[in-house]
C-alpha cells in the first residue's frame, strides 16, 4: 500500500475508470488544461483529450444537466463543481432531473452521474466560498451522498460511484486534498453505504464524517491520554442513506453520543443522527446526545472569527467532558 495524497487518490480513480471505459468522462471548470483547482484531473486532459476531459463554461446548472443527459445514454460523467457554494446553481438539475428521473420514468431511465465538490471552511475564503452543504444534499430521495475522510475512501468511493447506477454526490473538503494516507495498490471499491469504526472505545461514541472524523480522532486521543476516557469514533462516510444499524450498534455499546459536524446545526447531520438514535436505540442512552456544530453565521473573513465559527477537537473534548461529568 502506497501513501498518497487525497487529491492523488481522486486522480487515480479518475484515471483508472477512464482507462477502462471510454464512456467515462470528466467535466468541470478549469479541470482540463489547468488540471483542476485541486488537481483531481491533473494530466488527464493530455491523456484522454478534450472530448473526455472537458473544460466547461461557467454554467453550473447546464453543464451538470448536460452530464446528466449524457448519462441517460450510458456515458458516465464525473462532474466537478469547483466549490460546493456554486452547487446552489446546479441544484435544479441535480434534484429535479438526476434524482427523480428513475422514479418518474417508472424505472426506465437512470442518471448514473457522479458529482464531486469540495465544501467546508478553508482559510479565509469568505462567506460565499466556505459553506458546508452536505445537509442540503442528503435530505432528498433519489441521490446518494458520500463524503470521504481519507485518501482510501476518496479513491474507493469515487470508483464505486462511477460504476453505481445511481447518481452520487461526493462531498469533498478544501482542506483535505493534501492529506496523506494509504491506498491499496490494487483496485478497490469502497461500499457506498455503511459506516466505519475508526477507533474502538467504550465510554462515548463520536460520530464524524469527512474532516470532522479527524477532529473526533484528535479529541479521542486527548480524552484517552488526559482523561482516561475511551471514545469510539464512527466515520459516517455515507450521508445518504445514513447507516442506522451502525449508528445504533455503537451507541448500544457506549451509551453516549456526540455528533461532530462542521456545518451550522439546524437540520444537519447532527440532528439526523440524533433522530436515528432516538428512533432506534433511545433507551440505550445514558446521557442526552450532543451536537458539536458551527455557529449559525455566514463564514467571516477574519481568521479568528472564522475559526471561532466552526468547531474543533477541543470543542469535542469539552462536549464529552461536560456530558460525562454531568452523568
Amino acid at each position, binding site marked *: 500500500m502506497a501513501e498518497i495524497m487525497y487529491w492523488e487518490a481522486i486522480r487515480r480513480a479518475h484515471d483508472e475508470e477512464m482507462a477502462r471505459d471510454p*464512456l467515462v468522462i470528466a467535466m468541470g471548470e478549469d479541470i482540463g488544461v489547468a488540471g483542476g483547482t485541486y488537481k483531481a484531473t491533473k494530466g488527464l486532459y493530455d491523456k484522454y483529450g478534450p472530448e473526455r476531459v472537458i473544460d466547461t463554461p461557467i454554467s453550473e446548472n447546464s*453543464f451538470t444537466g448536460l452530464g446528466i443527459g449524457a448519462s441517460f445514454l450510458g456515458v458516465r460523467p464525473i462532474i466537478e463543481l469547483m466549490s460546493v457554494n456554486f452547487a446552489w446553481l446546479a441544484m435544479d438539475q441535480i434534484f429535479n432531473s438526476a434524482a427523480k428521473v428513475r422514479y418518474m420514468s417508472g424505472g426506465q431511465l437512470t442518471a448514473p452521474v457522479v458529482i464531486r465538490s469540495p465544501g467546508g471552511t478553508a482559510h479565509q475564503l469568505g462567506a460565499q466560498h466556505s459553506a458546508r452543504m452536505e445537509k442540503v444534499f442528503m435530505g432528498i430521495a433519489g441521490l446518494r451522498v458520500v463524503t470521504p475522510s481519507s485518501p482510501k475512501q476518496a479513491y474507493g468511493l469515487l470508483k464505486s460511484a462511477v460504476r453505481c447506477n445511481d447518481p452520487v454526490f461526493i462531498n469533498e473538503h478544501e482542506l483535505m486534498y493534501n492529506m496523506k494516507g494509504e491506498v491499496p495498490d490494487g483496485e478497490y471499491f469502497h461500499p457506498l453505504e455503511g459506516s466505519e469504526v475508526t477507533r474502538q472505545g467504550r465510554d462515548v461514541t463520536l460520530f464524524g464524517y469527512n474532516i470532522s472524523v479527524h477532529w473526533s480522532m484528535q479529541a479521542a486521543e486527548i480524552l484517552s491520554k488526559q482523561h482516561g476516557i475511551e471514545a469510539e469514533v464512527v466515520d459516517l462516510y455515507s450521508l445518504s442513506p445514513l447507516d442506522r444499524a451502525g449508528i445504533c450498534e455503537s451507541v448500544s455499546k457506549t451509551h453516549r453520543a456526540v455528533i461532530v459536524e462542521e456545518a451550522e446545526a439546524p437540520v444537519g447531520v447532527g440532528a439526523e443522527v440524533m433522530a436515528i438514535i432516538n428512533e432506534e436505540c433511545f433507551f440505550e442512552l445514558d446521557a442526552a446526545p450532543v451536537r458539536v456544530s458551527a455557529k449559525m453565521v455566514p463564514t467571516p473573513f477574519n481568521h479568528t472569527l472564522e475559526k471561532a465559527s466552526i468547531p474543533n477537537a477541543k470543542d469535542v473534548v469539552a462536549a464529552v467532558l461536560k456530558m460525562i461529568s454531568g452523568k
Partner: protein
Amino acid sequence: MNAADKKRVLREMLFARRFEERCYEAYVERKIGGFLHLYPGQEACAIGVMEAARPGHDYVITGYRDHIHAIKCGCDPKAVMAELYARETGCSKGRGGSMHIFDVEHHFMGGYALVGGPFPLAAGMAKAIKMKGGDEIAICFLGDAANNQGTFHETLNMASVWNLPVLFICENNLYGIGTATHRSTAVTEQYKRACSYGIESSQTDGQDIDQVYAAAKVAVDFVRSGQGPYFLELCTYRYRGHSMSDSGAYRTKEEVEEWGKRDPIVILRDRLVESGELTLDDYQAMDKEIFAEIENDIIPYAENSPEPKVEELEKYVLAENDPYVKGGVR
C-alpha cells in the same frame, strides 16, 4: 412527403387532436388528475418535425406538453392514456403522469416539468451520441417562454462550442401560461436569439405541416451531417388553455378565432382535398376510425388496467441490488 405520407400525417394529426380532446373529457370526468397540458393547435410541430427526423431512432425530449411527441416517437397511445389514468401499464408505470411520459425503448426520453430543464439534458444526449459515434441526433422541443430560462443560454453556448448534434425546436405559441411573449421577452422572434451562440437558425410557419417538414428537413440534415446544433422556431398557437385551470382571459376572442382559421389539420386536409388526393368522406371515415380506436381500444385499456401496488411505492427510487452499494466487489 408523398401523397401517402401526407395522408398518414393528416391521420396522425387528427388522431393527436382527438386523443387530446378525449383526455380533456376524461379530466372533466375526473378520470385523470393533476396537471394536463394539451396540444390542439400545435400538431404540425411535433409531427412535422419528427416526420423529417427518424422517430424511434433519434432521441427526443420535451416539456410537460408531451403526449403527442411521445406517440409520434412510437409510444403506444394506450400506454400514454394508461399513464394519464395512473395505471401500472402506463408508459411510466403510473409514477410519472401527464407531464412525465417516458418511452426509452422508442428513444422518447421524457417530458419534464421544469421549464428550461430539458435544454441541457438534450445537449447531454447529443454529447453521448457523439462519443458513441452513432448517427442519431438529439431533438429538444420546448416553448417560447422557456427561452428566457438561463439554461437556454448556457446550453446553446455549450452546444455550439462543442459542436453537438442537437436540434432545438421552439414551438412559439405566443404565450407562457398567461403572459404574452412580448411582455416577458425583449426579442420575440426566437430564432434571432440563436445569433448569440453562432448557431444556425430559422423560423417557419408551425401551422402548415408542409412548411414544418421542409424546414425541419433542412435542420435535421444539418445536424445529422455533423455541422453542429440548429435552432428552429415554429410559429404556432395552442387552442386550449395552458393547462386545465386556465382562465383564458389573457387572449382576445378575435385572436383565438384568427388562429382557429389556421388549424393545421384543416390546412392539410383542404390541401389534399384540393389536389384530389382526399375526399371529405375519406376524412370523415378517418375520423370515425380514430374515434373507434380511442373509445374501443385506448380508453378501455386505460380504464381496465390495474393501479400500481402500494407495496411497490418505494421501488424505482434507487438501483436495486447495485453491487457497489454494500461492498464486496473486487
